[in-house]
C-alpha cells in the first residue's frame, strides 16, 4: 500500500498519520507538501489533523486554496480513497468534497478524550460492519458537524453517515456528552456520495497500537488494505 500524507503549514498530526500507516500498518508512506502539485504515486491519501494556516479564519478555510488541492481533487474524482481526520475533515468540507461544515463545539472548549462511535455505513475504511462500536480519541475545538435538514436526509438516503457518536454500549447519546461536541444527528464522520472520501473528527491514527492502550483505529487502515485488494 502506498499512502501520501498531505502536509499543510500547521498540520500537526502529520507525524501521527505517517507513523501509523508506515510503521504500524506497513505501508509505503510519504509527506506530500502543500506547495507541491502532485501527491506521488499513491493508492490512498490521508489529510491529517492540525491547524492548517493557523485556522485563524475558519478551520480548513485557507488550506482549501493550497497548490496541492487540485491534485487531491483529481485523486478524489478518480475514485481514490481519501481519509480526512479532524482538520483533514474540516479541509474536505471547505474544499467541497464533503457536504456540511464543522463549527465550534457546543461547549465552546477544545476537548481531548476518548469517545465511542458506531459504524453506520460500510465503505473502503469501514468494512468492519455496521453496528461495530469503536473507542477512539478526539482532540478538537471545531468538531460540531452541521448540515441542513435536506442535506442530512440526502446523507441518510445514500448511506453516507459513516460514524455516529454513541455510548460505551453502542446506544445513541440522547443528548448526553457521549456526543462530545453537539454534532447534528450525533454525526462523527461522513462519506461522499461515491464513498471514496471519508472525513471524521476522531483520530484512528492515535489509537492503532497496544502501547497506546487502544488499537481500535487500526481496523480502518486494515479495511483500506482489503479495499485496495492487498491481502
Amino acid at each position, binding site marked *: 500500500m502506498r499512502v501520501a500524507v498531505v502536509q499543510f503549514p500547521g498540520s500537526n498530526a502529520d*507525524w501521527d498519520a505517517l507513523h501509523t500507516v508506515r510503521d504500524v500498518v506497513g505501508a509505503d508512506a510519504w509527506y506530500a507538501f502543500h506547495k507541491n502539485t502532485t501527491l506521488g504515486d499513491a493508492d490512498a491519501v490521508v489529510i491529517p489533523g*492540525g491547524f492548517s494556516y*493557523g485556522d485563524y479564519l475558519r478551520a480548513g478555510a485557507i488550506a482549501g486554496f493550497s497548490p496541492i488541492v487540485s491534485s487531491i481533487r483529481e485523486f478524489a474524482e478518480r475514485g481514490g480513497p481519501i481519509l480526512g481526520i479532524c482538520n483533514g475533515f474540516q479541509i474536505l468540507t471547505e474544499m467541497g468534497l464533503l457536504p456540511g461544515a464543522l463549527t465550534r463545539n457546543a461547549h465552546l472548549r*477544545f476537548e*481531548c478524550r476518548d469517545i465511542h462511535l458506531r459504524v453506520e455505513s460500510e465503505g473502503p475504511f469501514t468494512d468492519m460492519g455496521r453496528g461495530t462500536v469503536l473507542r477512539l*480519541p478526539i482532540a478538537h475545538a471545531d468538531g460540531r458537524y452541521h448540515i441542513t435538514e435536506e442535506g442530512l436526509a440526502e446523507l441518510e438516503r445514500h448511506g453516507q453517515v459513516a460514524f455516529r457518536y454513541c455510548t460505551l454500549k453502542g446506544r445513541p447519546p440522547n443528548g448526553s456528552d457521549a456526543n462530545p461536541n453537539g454534532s447534528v444527528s450525533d454525526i462523527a464522520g461522513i462519506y461522499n456520495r461515491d464513498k471514496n472520501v471519508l472525513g471524521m473528527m476522531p483520530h484512528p491514527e492515535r489509537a492503532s497500537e497496544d502501547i497506546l492502550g487502544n488499537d481500535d483505529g487500526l481496523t480502518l487502515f486494515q479495511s483500506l488494505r482489503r479495499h485496495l485488494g492487498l491481502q
Partner: protein
Amino acid sequence: MSAPANFPGEPESSLEIAREFGLSNDEWERVLSTLSRKPSYAELGVVSVMWSEHCSYKSSRVHLSRLPTTGPQVVQGPGENAGAVDIGDGFCAVFKMESHNHPSYIEPYQGAATGVGGILRDVFTMGARPIASLNSLRFGRPDHPKTPHLLKGVVAGIGGYGNCIGVPTVGGEVQFDSSYDGNILVNAFTVGIARTDDLFFGVAEGVGNPILYVGSKTGRDGIHGATMASAEFGEETDSKLPTVQVGDPFMEKLLLEACLEIFATDCLSGVQDMGAAGLTSSSVEMADRAGNGIELDLDAIPRRTKALSPYEMLLSESQERMLMVAKEGREQEVFDICAKWDLDASIVGRVTDTGRFVCKATPGYDPFDGTGEPDPVVVVDLPVDLLTNAAPKYDRPQTSRAEQASVVTMAGDAPDDLGAELVRLVGSPNIGSRSWIWRQYDHIVRDGTVIRPGEGDAAVIRVFCEDEEGTREKYLAVSSDCNARHVELDPFGGAAMAVAECTRNIVCVGAKPLGLTDCLNFGNPEVPEQMWRFAQAVDGLGAACSALGAPVVSGNVSLYNETDGNAILPTPTVAVVGQLEDPEHRLGLGFVRESDVIAHLGRASRGVLGGSEWLVQRTRSVTGAPVGIDLEAEAALQHAMLELARAKLLHSAHDISDGGFAVCLAEASIAHGYGARVTLPAAEDAPAHALMFSEEPSRIVVSMLPGNVGPVGEICARFGVPFEKIGSVTGETLAIEGVCEVPVEELAERHAKALDAIVSQPGGG
C-alpha cells in the same frame, strides 16, 4: 569615542528615567562611572533590562551556584537556553521550565499562551524537537472573584498555543491558595529530543559571521516586559497591558519546522530565541558566551509598525522571533528554507571582535513607510561585559522567620464522620480531578502518550529517536511538583519534599530520574525574610537533588511575586525527566484487579498534619508543625520502588502526597472503579483523621498479585524499606477498617466535579 546619539524625540537619560526603568540610585551611578558618560536613552533601556532581576538573576545568582548540576548523564547544565540529559544511543532529552506569572495575571490567555511559546522556543533553539509539555499553575482561593476568570483564561491560553503547535501537554499540577489571590503562577515546562552531537548553542561565534533575524516582525508589544516581571504589583497593574505580548502559535510552528530544517544543514554557528528583553538579550547573551561583540543594523530590523525607535526595537518582546549566526557565505541556505516555510529572514548585523554591543540606526529613516534614506549613526555602544558578568550581583540580607507564636501540633477537633470528611476532601478543588483542565489540552498528539494525565503519578511518553540506523523508541517519564504550604512551614524541608515528590512520581511509573529543572517563585528579595526563604529553599532543593540523583540542568527564578506587600507562598516548582528501561515496566496509579493485595511502602504516618490540605481547610491558614523529610529513607524507598517496577511485581503504584493516605487510596480506587478494604497504617498512636490526612512524605501505596507479596517484601527488606500488607482490592466501597466505608462511585462523582464550582462561574475563557 563620541557618545552614541539620542534618537529624535527621545529624552536625555536621567536618574528619574533610570528609576522608572527599574534601576536603583546606586545602579544608575554604576552605569555613569563605568561608561564615564551619560548613556543614551536606548542604552539606558538596554542596561536596565539586562540588569533587571529577570535577566540578571542579581539577587539569586549567589545562591543558585550552590545547586548540584553535574552527573554522568548531564549533557548540558545550566547557562544555556535549556539543559540536557543523556538518554542513550547518542540522544538526549532537552528541557527547561520557565515562569510567565506577571503577564498571565494581567492577561491570562495571552500571558499563558506566550509562556508556552517561550519555553518551546528555548527547547527547539537547542536543536531539539519538542515532544511534551507540562504546566504548574497556582491560583488564588477558589472563591476569589478573579479565580474563575484567571483559571479559564490560563487553561485556554495554554491549550490554544500547545494544541495548535502540536506538542502534547501531558500533565502538570494546580493548587489554589489565598496567597496567590493577587499573583497567580504560570510555570511552563517543555522537553524535547535531540541527537547529542547536533545540539545547538546560543553562541555568536566566528568574527564577521552574519547575524540573521528570522520569524515574526517586530512591533511595540511587550516593551520592558522583563522589567515588569521584576517588580511588585500595585494598584497601577491594570495599566500594564501593553507590556503583555501576543502569541501566534501558527508562526511558531513554522519557525519550529524551519529551524529544525536549518539546523540539519549545519550552516549555523549559533542561535538564540528572542525571549525576555528580545533582541537585546539574545544578541548580548550570544556575544557573551562566545567572548565576542555584536554590531546590529537596526535599519534592517523587519517591523510591523512605523516609526519604531531604537529603544523600542531593542526592548520589544514581540513573539516568535529567532536570532541566528550563520557561517559566512551560507546565508542563502537559511533564506531558502525560510522561503519554503513562508518566513521572513534578513541579515541584521555581524559578529565582531570588539567585545561591545553596538547598534546603528538612521534618524528619520523608516523602512516601514519608505521615509528617508539609510545613513546610520551609532545609537548604542556598550561593553557586553557590563550587561552580563559585570551586572550587579547582590547577597541580600536574610532574616529567619520569627517562630510561629503557637504551633498547632495536632488538628484540634476530630471530625465526627470520617467517611463524609474523606468524600468532601476528595471533591475539593485542591484534591479533586483536574480533567476539566487536561481535557482542554491535546495530550496525545504525536502518538507517544503512553500514560495519560490522571492515569499515573507521572506521564509516560514514547519518543522516536531517528538516525542513520533507523528509528528507536525510547520512553520518558515527566512530572512537576511543589506543595508550597510545606515550603512555607519549612523552606528547606518543603523544597526538599518538592524534589522528593517529583522523583517519587517518576519511580512510581517505573522510570529512573535523570535530571531536574526548577522554577523558583518567591516574593520580594529585598525583604530579608523572603530572601531567607529563598536561600533555605535552594539548599533544600540542592540536598534533595543530590540525595535522589536528579542534578539541576536548567531553571528560572521569578521574584517579586507580591501585590501590595502580600507575598505568595514560597513556590520552588520542580520538574523531573526520567527514563524507562522498558515500557513494560510502566505502572498506573489505579487498582486494576479484584483481590490484588494492597501494601504500604515506607515509614507509616505519625499523624503530623502541618501544612496538609485537610488542616488548611479546617483552620483557613497554613499552619502546624512541619512534617519534615528523611532524605536517606526517601532515597531507599525510591530505589526499592524502581526495582519493584523493573521486576514487574506490581500492578499499580501511587505515592502519598496532597490529602494524605486516605486520598491516595481513594484515587487508586476511583481510577478504574475498584473498591478496597485496608487497615490504617500508623507508626504512633495518633487520631485516625490525622493518620488519614497527614501529608508526611516518603510513602507509596502499591497493589500486586497475592503471590507476589513474598518477593516484594524481600526487595523492600533488601533496601531497608518498611513494607506492610494493609489489605486488598475488593468490592465497591473504599473501607478503612474501624474508620469509614464509602462507595467508590460516590467518591468518583465528587472527585470528577471538584472544579465545577469554579469553572461554572461566568467570566474568563
